[in-house]
């Protein structure tokens, strides 16, 4: 695995965010650049690049304001966006 450079936590990254409930793929226009994948357990995974921490918090705020319960959030290595 590539050694991540110091300071990379403030640069862009790929995130996987799991929410409770099935969000129709058409909501993708609201989360520009991300993909929405419903899972069998009734949750939805939102995946994609997020340019920085501020953008991440903005995304979380949108999820909050839609009333979509957060289940988990992970940052994935950028050279493996489909992990």
């Amino acid at each position, binding site marked *: 695995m590539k050694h991540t450079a110091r300071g990379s936590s403030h640069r862009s990254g790929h995130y996987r965010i799991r929410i409770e*409930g*099935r*969000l*129709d793929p058409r909501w993708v*226009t*609201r989360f520009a650049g991300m993909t929405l994948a419903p899972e069998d357990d009734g949750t*939805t995974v939102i995946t994609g690049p997020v340019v920085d921490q501020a953008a991440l918090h903005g995304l979380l705020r949108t999820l909050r304001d839609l*009333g979509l319960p957060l289940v988990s959030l992970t940052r994935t290595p950028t050279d493996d966006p489909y992990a």
Partner: protein
Amino acid sequence: MASPLVGTKLYRPQPRRGLVARPRLSERLERAAEARLTLVSAPAGFGKTTALTAWLAVRPQQDGVAWLSLDEGDAQAASFWTYVITALQGVAPDVGAAVLPLLQSSRAPSEATLATILNELGASPHQLYLVLDDYHLADGPDIAAGMTFLLHHLPPQAHLVISTRADPDLPLARLRASGDLVEVRAADLRFTLAETSAYLTDTAGLELTSDAVAALETRTEGWVSALQLAALSLEGRPDADAFIDHFAGDDRYIVDYLVEEVLSRQPEQLHTFLLQTSVLDRLTAGLCETVTGRPGGGAVLEALERQNLFVIPLDDHRRWYRYHQLFADVLQAHLHRERPDEVADLHRRAGGWYEQAGEPGPAVHHALAAGDVDHAADLVELAIPQLRRDRREATIRGWIEGLPEELVRRRPVLAIGLVGALMAGNDFADVEGRLRDVERWLPALRAGEPLPSEIVVTHQDEVARLPAAVQLYRAALALIGGDLSGTVRHAERAIALSVDDDVIPAGASALAGLAHWTSGDLEAAHRRYAASLGGLQSAGHLSDVLGCTIALADIRIAQGRLGDALATYQAALQLAVRRSGPPLRGTPDMHVGIAQIALERGDLETARQQLRRACDLGEHLGLPQYPYRWRATTAVLRESEGDLAAAMDLLDEAQRVYIGDFSPDVRPLSARIVRVQLARGDVDTAMQWAGAHGPAATDDVSYLHEFAHLTVVRVLLAEYRLRGSEARLDEADALLDRLLASAENGGRRGSVIEVLTLQALTHQARGDLTGALARCERALTMARPEGHVRVFTTEGEPLAALVEACRRPTAREASDHGAPGRRSARTGGGLVDPLSARELEVLRLLATDLDGPGIARHLMVSVNTLRTHTKSIYAKLGVTSRRAAVRRAQQLDLLSTPSGR
């Protein structure tokens, strides 16, 4: 500031009819009357506002409820607190009246300001509730500190109620532990099965089987917004059970599913209306009509409200509404899917409407959303001058930072606006780069010539201002960087380049004044500050005039011109009291200044009065340095009264409230503290300071270090007296010689007098009485014209003895005040020729209604004797009538009985 939108923020929503009774929720909220903070924290659509309004509706009549609906703009302290106070004034009209105008010019209120508000709340005879709705929009570092302070010091009858989607940044754990917190969370707000049943059956009027109700409750999990939508979907639907089965079996995002259901049941026009208006934060008839291009917007909104279609009224007149957040989000998603090409145009129309309505804020927001960045930039440019006049620098910054960078680069007016806003917020990082950008364009921006194609200017008048503005900001940068000559150079250019403007030249003059002052050129500094004051006065910036006054007076005091300094303060006070309206910020600072001068002249009574008057006006009316200056000056008063312990305490406090600014620190607090320590005989501590922090006796002398150096001299003298080391005395003498030369060169009369008195002491210490007396005499002579007294009373017996030996009228006055620790009988009240005890008695009777013979009888003297007394009294007071005598006596506080404290 006043716009129709403001009223909607303060509008308290009315409780809905037909609500389900929820006793356990009401019970929980009842406890709010005992708690400091009631927190209603749950995601969107859980019925927070409904629960609160229902509870508030049953408060006793006399309880005051102030409601404030927050939005993103309130994350900024000035906006937040202005609205909070405005809301409170709705129930307690006197709260914050004096404080409100101050908030518009400063960034965040000081603790003193908040304390004032808290005190005023404490005076309320009734319970007061401050409800902050949508607190998550305003929560942030800017307001968290102030809110924490407010919470901590709330009087018992005041209660805070916060409704939010995210737990606020407040000390909740502490409040929970101390029992001061009432919490209502999502779990509490979820509808139980029984409540769901009641809602669906009674409120929504549906006829459902208990299985159906249970299925709905499971699916919605008691989320009331979902229940509402479900009810709407079931209205008049013949196949209720089929719908519920399908609904329960579907795991789509519930709001999504239900809103789509509801939408699909709406007539075409309404469907369109809902989608198109979903781009708006707030809805009103005219705006909706403009955006949809169809008439009858008002009727539609009323219909939506009647149908309970997630439209929330924002005022009593049904003029403004907004969509419930969840509904709006889904609507927008539908809009983007069904009519993506319309979106930009909808925003454009909305922006146009707001522009017409004179609301640049939302106009800019919609222009940006429409992708019309150039138009948005135009709007910002046009709005800047007024925002600048209103000191809304943070707003300017926010708007410009919301525009694309390369756009700002091309618009010098925006770039300079940003520079000004950044510097006002003490954020200097990017300023240099941006100034250089603007400077590059300046040669091309000559009046009348066409602009080069690369740059854009919308507000033509602002162009004329640019060259001067650039120089002004360069001067400020130079000052911050310590380049004093650079500061003056740029300031002069700014003044020369100013066209039709008072504010830039005034700012530039003040910067040049600061530079001169720091380098010790007092006369030049005074000239500059005087010019600045004139400009500020013309521009009507009266608080700044008061701030400038302090600098002018301090310079005169340094020059020993006490009379001029006093006149400066008195003129400023006239200005401050002449206007109508709330008192001007900076007024108490003037009184502190007058007290300072009175203390130099040994007039303790005037000093006391002035400091008291400053106190009465209140700390919130003071300029930023006021808390420090008041304490430091009162410390001098206590010292003069002989109360060294109190003086020390005040100086310690002063240290805690000290805020450094760009003015030169010519009387460093640490040196002041040392002087008091010496007066208490604490020589060792003083020597430690001198060793660790004081300038070396052999260091170069300069205006900036003069005070500290003079303190070092005193330490050396004290050391000599303690240890008898001649070397110390020699050091002191050498230093004093250099200090004298420097003070004389710099025209600092006050310092010259001080140096002479210290030289007199060193000569006295060596046994050279002639030399000592000569210097003392010279000091006294120099002191007489302006009435310097204090400089002779701080060195105790040795100097007092010398002064007495000089036997001048001023000497008698100085010796009357005595050395600290020796309390003189309070007879004279600061007069050259004090009144005798008998004369004081007569004076007190002159202040009564008794006529001449009446007073004579009271005193058991003849009328002739009385006449002799009154003649003497009039002469000593410098008056020619009884009334004038009484007035003067009141000014000098001679009419109180002499029983001491």
